[in-house]
């Protein structure tokens, strides 16, 4: 399978990373080198093998459904690039 410029552009957009038009061919080439390396996995017989979900068999712990944390608005907003009146501020989303 080979990735072309258009696919590279589509992946970049899906990943929400702006890539300049002139950088796309080189990016596609890098993807192809990495995917070429990954293609080796096709040699492995994986019939009847379950995909790993947890490297150590463990049951996730459960706890009572109660509030254990919160009331930290100032701390949560402290590192925001733009916070106003207790909210995160972003460019206009809805016209």
């Amino acid at each position, binding site marked *: 399978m080979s*990735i072309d410029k258009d696919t590279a552009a589509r992946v970049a957009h899906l990943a929400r*990373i*702006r890539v300049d038009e002139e950088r796309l061919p080189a990016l596609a080439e890098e993807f192809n080198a990495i*995917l070429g390396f990954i293609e080796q996995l096709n040699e*492995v017989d994986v019939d009847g093998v379950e995909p790993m979900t947890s490297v150590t068999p463990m049951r996730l712990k459960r706890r009572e459904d109660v509030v254990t944390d919160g009331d930290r608005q100032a701390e949560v907003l402290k590192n925001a*690039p733009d916070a106003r009146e207790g909210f995160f501020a972003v*460019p206009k989303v809805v016209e």
Partner: protein
Amino acid sequence: MTDLTSLTIAAARDALRKGDVTSAELTEACLTAIDGADALNAFVHKTPEIARQQAAAADARRGADAPDLNGIPLGIKDLFCTKGVPSQAASRILDGFRPEYESTVTRQLFEAGAVMLGKLNMDEFAMGSSNETSVYGNAVNPWRREGDDTALTPGGSSGGSAAAVAAGLCLGATGTDTGGSIRQPAAFTGITGIKPTYGRVSRWGIIAFASSLDQAGPMARDVRDAAILLRAMAGHDPLDSTSADLPVPDFEAMLTGDIRGKTIGIPREYRMDGMPDEIESLWAEGRRMMEDAGARIVDISLPHTKYALPAYYVVAPAEASSNLARYDGVRYGRRAKLAQGDGIAEMYEKTRAEGFGDEVQRRVMIGTYVLSAGFYDAYYNRARKVRALIKRDFEEAFANGVDAILTPATPSAAFGLGEMADADPVQMYLNDVFTVTVNLAGLPGISVPAGLDRQGLPLGLQLIGRPWEEGDLLNTAYALERAANFVAKPGKWW
């Protein structure tokens, strides 16, 4: 007085308890060494005020029953969130981020009395094997080839941690290991580093790269120090749902050096085509040392070894693309300057384009691709199946009575900074060929310095243990360390 910064943690602990030295003295000695080592670019955020306060508190608490780490100066990898102190995973996108909370590992270390000297350089988001993807610039290996002043990589991603411990800037350091990021830099700098069993150390507050593979662990001068540090870092944490609720043994007390009757496996698939003969002979030497120490050596097969790196380069980028989706310029870190009329999509795309370096962008996009509709089964699910087979290989070896597995730690000694600049990304990935299997299988692995190459650079051997048996693994490593008797130190040029 002997040079305080060259003390092991165990020696410093004993000297502190006896009152031969104070933490304030130890800490000042390290702070002076750090200020004189800017050429190594290991410490990227120095925290002398915090260090002096913690040292004073440790000196006040001093006594025979103080914890092992009371008053011991450490370096902390930039990947750990430390309250009020820059923690940016060596990325531009976290420029200015000062966490409002403390990672579980650093909290435990500080509760045990440890002193934080500062934050250590690393590859951006721990993605790299040479510390060359850091926004802070390269960390530099204190070791040089004989008669040659080429700047060498300390390895990566925990390159700053490795350089700092090897150069005597701190007594020990925290590292993290997703595909070899503790063990490869430890091998490149002649120190000891252990990646514990997945779940042994809490990941809470450690900036995530690939959550099913990431584990924190210690980087130290020797096996005993690694054992002391690991005990303080490990333990169950309700804030990490994958943290194991198992007791943490006194690893140091398990260091007897007696490995008589243990079975050590030598996996034939780790003998790679084109492996340098120095690596091959070091491995053979390690085998002989284990045998001389009374272990039984058996040849074993781990048939899916070859597929570990390709599986890793599906699983790790897939998880990274999800984990790094949070860097959107909204909640923390840096937001790109926007043009008039730019909307939210432009904000995301511009922020991530200027905030992430090339390697991180590449991995996020590869991860996005392998998880995208139509490719999920072909890549991601297949890689998870291969991962299950890699783990099964190890389980079969252990079921056949193998106690530990001996391999080289890296396929070469430290290489020159910039030497891989023109290679394609896959060439750099091959650095982790011997270490990455251990992350995929969730096992503990330790790198122990075992010899020097012809150019006078350190080389390491890796031991892989059974899950949750870090104590036994550390003891086997201790036997190897005693036999190898690696005492070389880098000559000071910085």
